[in-house]
């Protein structure tokens, strides 16, 4: 079977919009273009009805008990900011302490940094070599000053799934709020804000086959009722939490994307997991010395993060230019620092530089995976032949014993 190039295997960065989602949203640009806040005429009421449907679909995707708990935002970055700063600012008189983990997304990390500059204190939980936090460390970190615990569902680099239900239960018992950045998780793994005691949850359409620029924040209304200080002031949309005219076509699309993902998750994750196994096994069979980064068992089906020892990541990406993946190598980042997530897990810098993230998604095929295996294996083999490190290892030299003339 032939494949069409280039092949997209970067589904953690973003996903292709499902054609069904495009079909659902298009009428809301040209036919039903009313403002959902215009209750006085049919254009507005049609738009409002469509928003209500979308909101319901979003609520059901995460097990929210009412649609009112869904606040529409522009994406997970905004939801992260609104949740963390919104809670901290609202509860400032009750405490000054926040807890999060070092492997969170930059939107979560930087929101905490901003609050630190305002005088809040932050505990940065480490992760183990699998990429998971330690529940006992979390329990020990909670004090009577703690307002919020922010732990992501699925990591965007290594795909590992944190023990959400246990974290939620712990937070609930100790009376602190639990915020979960689930941008990489909704529609991919089962999530239930009730069963998992999640008080706030961020998600975004473009990681689940919806369009970019639309996201949501789940905000619990009961047991406990979560109150937030808004960041965006204006016409009082979204019950005052996020002013701004609603992006009706995008909300319709987001809702439809959530509906499809929820209905097809069981089937789809089986299929994607099979593709991931095929990729992992195919590469392992052809290339020696490759290392999986992150837990194998606690992992989202579509993620495979591998280190190809002795081959620098950017040079590998360059060789497989017809396959879209990403690397934790410093050479691909503008900061020239390797991935902070891999570093936090104790992956040595020398292996972090060789890491490649494969993100398998809904539209990938077996033929594409087979093509990727061949291409990656060929390029790794070629680059190892020109790697001085590979040569040394073949000569039996222990690289850690070498006195490197680093700089």
């Amino acid at each position, binding site marked *: 079977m032939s494949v069409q190039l280039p092949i997209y295997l970067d589904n953690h960065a973003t996903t292709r919009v499902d054609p069904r989602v495009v079909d659902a949203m298009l009428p809301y640009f040209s036919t039903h273009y009313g403002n959902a806040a215009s209750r006085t005429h049919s254009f507005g009421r049609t738009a409002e009805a469509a928003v209500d449907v979308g909101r319901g679909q979003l609520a059901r995707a995460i097990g929210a008990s009412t649609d009112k708990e869904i606040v529409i935002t522009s994406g997970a970055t905004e939801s992260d900011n609104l949740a963390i700063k919104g809670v901290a600012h609202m509860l400032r008189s009750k405490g000054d302490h926040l807890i999060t983990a070092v492997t969170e997304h930059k939107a979560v990390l930087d929101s905490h940094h901003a609050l630190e500059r305002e005088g809040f204190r932050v505990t940065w939980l480490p992760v183990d070599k699998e990429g998971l936090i330690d529940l006992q460390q979390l329990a020990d970190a909670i004090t009577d000053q703690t307002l919020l615990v922010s732990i992501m569902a699925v990591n965007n680099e290594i795909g590992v799934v944190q023990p959400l239900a246990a974290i939620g239960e712990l937070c609930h018992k100790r009376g602190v709020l639990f915020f979960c950045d689930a941008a990489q998780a909704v529609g991919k793994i089962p999530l239930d804000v009730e069963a998992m005691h999640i008080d706030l949850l961020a998600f975004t359409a473009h990681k689940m086959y919806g369009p970019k620029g639309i996201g949501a924040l789940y905000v619990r209304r009961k047991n406990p009722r979560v109150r937030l200080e808004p960041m965006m002031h204006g016409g009082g949309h979204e019950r005052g939490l996020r002013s701004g005219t609603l992006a009706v076509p995008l909300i319709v699309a987001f809702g439809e994307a959530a509906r499809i993902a929820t209905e097809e998750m069981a089937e789809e994750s089986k299929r994607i997991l099979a593709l991931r196994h095929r990729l992992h096994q195919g590469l392992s069979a052809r290339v020696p010395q490759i290392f999986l980064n992150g837990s194998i068992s606690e992992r989202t089906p579509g993620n495979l993060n591998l280190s190809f020892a002795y081959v620098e990541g950017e040079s590998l990406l360059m060789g497989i230019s017809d396959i879209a993946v990403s690397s934790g190598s410093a050479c691909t980042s503008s900061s020239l620092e390797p991935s902070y997530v891999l570093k936090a897990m104790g992956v040595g810098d020398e292996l972090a530089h060789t890491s490649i993230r494969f993100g398998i998604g809904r539209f990938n095929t077996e033929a594409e995976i087979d093509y990727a295996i061949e291409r990656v294996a060929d390029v790794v083999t070629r680059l190892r032949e020109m790697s001085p490190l590979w*040569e040394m290892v073949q000569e039996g030299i222990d690289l850690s014993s070498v006195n490197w003339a680093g700089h």
Partner: protein
Amino acid sequence: MAYSDKVLDHYNNPRNVGALPKSDPSVGTGVVGAPECGDVMKLQIKVNAEGVIEDARFKTFGCGSAIASSSLATEWVKGKTLEEAAKIRNTDIVQELNLPPIKIHCSVLAEDAIRAALADYKSKQKQDNA
């Protein structure tokens, strides 16, 4: 990252990849960089009786620009005397390969590798003559 045609050419058809016998007194070997930094370059020169570099080889662990810089360096040192080779500057490599600012350190590494190979050859010659 947009690569220049010359970087792509060196990456796809690297010149002089390989190894020369390290213990040969006419061979100088330079290894610079460190695996933790994401870049290690090994550059070797073979010098003839007239003091001219008649052959060169490299192996590089690093980005495409680092591979291209070292490939170009082996091309450039060939046929040069030791003094001439010592005059190759990383800025020449940057210009030739059209490297963006963020990739300048890859060219610095190539210059360092040439110097390290020259120094290794010279120290071997001293030992031989002693």
